[in-house]
């Protein structure tokens, strides 16, 4: 492991890569702060630049953008109560009330320290967990990988929220369907190209991500324009921050919260599909319960209430790299985009990455530490200036986002057909967003589609065309069993809760 860390340090600690970490953190914060644009859009917008770099530098840049965007999302949550991403929704519960009390600077500082702690503890745990899991996963067969991919896809849908599971599953299937467009890799047969030569190579992953995230988010902002009052509030919030000092008593109060939330966040982040959003809500709920009488302060500007979700979402973001780096299976939409970028470099993440390309594996881990340090020492003092982006009128910002999204894809392929395809996908995405259909499961399905088909094909070949591997190999059965549980459990717990409620009402009524 020491050797690995040294490899990581020597790769990440070049002037060039340090500059990329700095640039990534700043750009990520900048993009993440824009309401509506989250880490997925931020990373997607960076891919055209990352594609021109060597793999280590590209991945380091994207990881830094990821952290920066999460931090940027927290900033807009605190300042204007507009979480750029779901994972910073819980941050706004106490961050925004603090800002309303004139303590926006302090809230931002607490968010930065908590994010830093969550990220650093997460990276430390990643250092231990990733190589161990990579060693274990070397014994995985293609049947197990197929099952793991099913689990990853199902888990993302299962955590989609109440009533949204079928929608999320459906969007996953749509993503898988889109991944089959183009020439079949093994048999060389064209599929779903509709006779168009531009579709023979399939749909570009970057194109799909840009269209369904960056473009459609900008179009949604045009579709639902903000009122003058909201715009004025954003401008004022960006100008008045107050002191950034955190007192000793507050540090003492937050320290155990940060410790607990880091570990909880990391563990939740490792689970495929769970991700930073669940981690942040879970940490918030846990700390509220543990706070005893002080729990009543949650939601009114409590420092604990702010520190818990901020720590947990960063630790979870780090944790989500574990399945990506060790199994090659992304646990979230963001890591799915990173997987797409890695594949674009010709790198297949998985247990072999740890052995074959240790410089990439370790430099990602080391760059997470560097990224967190840079976020703290560079971004925090710059926040008053970066926050001014919130004062840029949307009439300038939105056409610019559209332009950067379109040109980002065009500069990779130089094919104007891609721009037309983006317009079509963005139109569909806007309609589906209005109907509350989630986009992240679709991207995950799209990214995993090719690998899933390949592993299924291989598994069938090894088993002489028999599907019996699905129930004969214990590990495969176990993983598929967990996937089935993920599907059934939310419905089952909902049912049990309903029965309990009904029973409680009955006994309550008879007691009266």
């Amino acid at each position: 492991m020491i050797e690995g860390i040294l490899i990581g340090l020597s790769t990440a600690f070049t002037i060039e890569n340090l500059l990329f970490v700095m640039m990534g953190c700043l750009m990520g914060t900048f993009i993440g702060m824009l309401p509506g644009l989250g880490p997925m859009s931020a990373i997607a917008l960076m891919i055209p630049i990352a594609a021109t770099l060597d793999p280590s530098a590209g991945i380091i840049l994207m990881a830094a953008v990821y952290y920066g965007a999460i931090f940027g999302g927290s900033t807009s949550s605190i300042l204007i109560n507009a979480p750029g991403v779901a994972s910073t929704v819980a941050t706004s519960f106490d961050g925004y009330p603090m800002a309303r009390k004139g303590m926006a600077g302090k809230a931002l500082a607490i968010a930065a320290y908590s994010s830093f702690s969550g990220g650093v503890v997460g990276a430390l745990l990643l250092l231990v967990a990733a190589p161990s899991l990579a060693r274990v996963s070397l014994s995985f067969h293609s049947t197990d990988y197929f099952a793991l991919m099913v689990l990853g896809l199902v888990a993302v849908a299962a955590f989609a929220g109440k009533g949204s599971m079928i929608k999320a599953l459906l969007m996953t299937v749509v993503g898988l369907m889109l991944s089959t467009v183009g020439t079949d890799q093994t048999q060389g047969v064209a599929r779903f190209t509709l006779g168009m030569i531009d579709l023979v190579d399939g749909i570009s992953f970057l194109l799909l991500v840009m269209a369904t995230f960056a473009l459609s988010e900008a179009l949604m902002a045009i579709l639902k324009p903000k009122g003058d009052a909201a715009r004025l509030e954003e401008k004022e919030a960006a100008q008045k921050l107050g002191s950034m000092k955190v007192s000793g008593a507050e540090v003492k109060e937050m320290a155990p919260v940060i410790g607990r939330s880091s570990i909880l966040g990391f563990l939740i982040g490792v689970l495929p599909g769970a991700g930073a959003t669940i981690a942040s809500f879970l940490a918030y709920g846990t700390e509220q319960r543990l706070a005893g009488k002080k729990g009543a302060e949650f939601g009114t500007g409590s420092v604990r209430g702010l520190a818990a979700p901020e720590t947990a979402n960063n630790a979870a973001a780090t944790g989500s790299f574990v399945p990506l780096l060790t199994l090659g299976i992304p646990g979230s939409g963001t890591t799915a985009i990173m997987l797409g970028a890695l594949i674009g470099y010709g790198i297949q993440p998985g247990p072999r990455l740890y052995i074959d390309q240790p410089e990439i594996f370790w430099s990602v881990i080391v760059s997470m530490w560097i990224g967190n340090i840079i976020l703290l020492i560079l971004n925090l003092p710059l926040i008053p200036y970066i926050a001014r982006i919130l004062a840029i009128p949307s009439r300038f910002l939105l056409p610019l986002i559209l332009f950067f999204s379109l040109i980002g894809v065009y500069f990779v392929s130089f094919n104007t057909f891609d721009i037309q395809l983006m317009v079509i996908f963005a139109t569909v995405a806007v309609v589906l967003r209005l109907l509350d259909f989630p986009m992240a499961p679709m991207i995950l399905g799209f990214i995993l589609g090719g690998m899933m088909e390949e592993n299924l094909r291989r598994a069938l070949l090894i088993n002489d065309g028999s599907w019996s591997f699905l129930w004969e190999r214990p590990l495969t059965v176990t993983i598929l069993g967990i996937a089935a549980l993920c599907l059934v459990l939310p419905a089952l717990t909902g049912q049990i809760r309903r029965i309990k409620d009904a029973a409680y009402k009955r006994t309550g009524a008879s007691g009266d």
Partner: protein
Amino acid sequence: MLTKDRIGGILILAFCAFYAFKIGDIRLLPFQRGDAFTARTMPMVLAVLGIGLAAILVIRPSRNLPDLRGLDWGRVAFFLVWMSIYGLSVRPLGFLISTTLFLAVGFAVLGERRLWLLAAVSVPLVVLFWLLMTQGLEVYIAPFPEGWN
């Protein structure tokens, strides 16, 4: 009742049905027809899953009615067409002219009326971006219309 779930379900059901219909176009060689896994296997599984899930979404009870109040459809439609036109014009007009036009008109449509500001923001930004791409990252893109270069 035409709820959000049902509208989405119907749209995706139509897409899945079209997808299933197009599976027939995937050509298989005679010796591949008996294989356990062909280029059609995965699409067939996906089509069945997609149609099944979309059908459940359409059939199951739901109450989330779409709220279309206060949505600026006109501007979104304009931008969709404008992006498409930008895609068609970026080669014949060249990067500098087409992008400046794209941005300036975009700013104007979203409410900026001062002509000098439209030019002051879009022109330098486009020129700087073009210089960064061509000189900094060595990605060449024709700046002017085809005949001028």
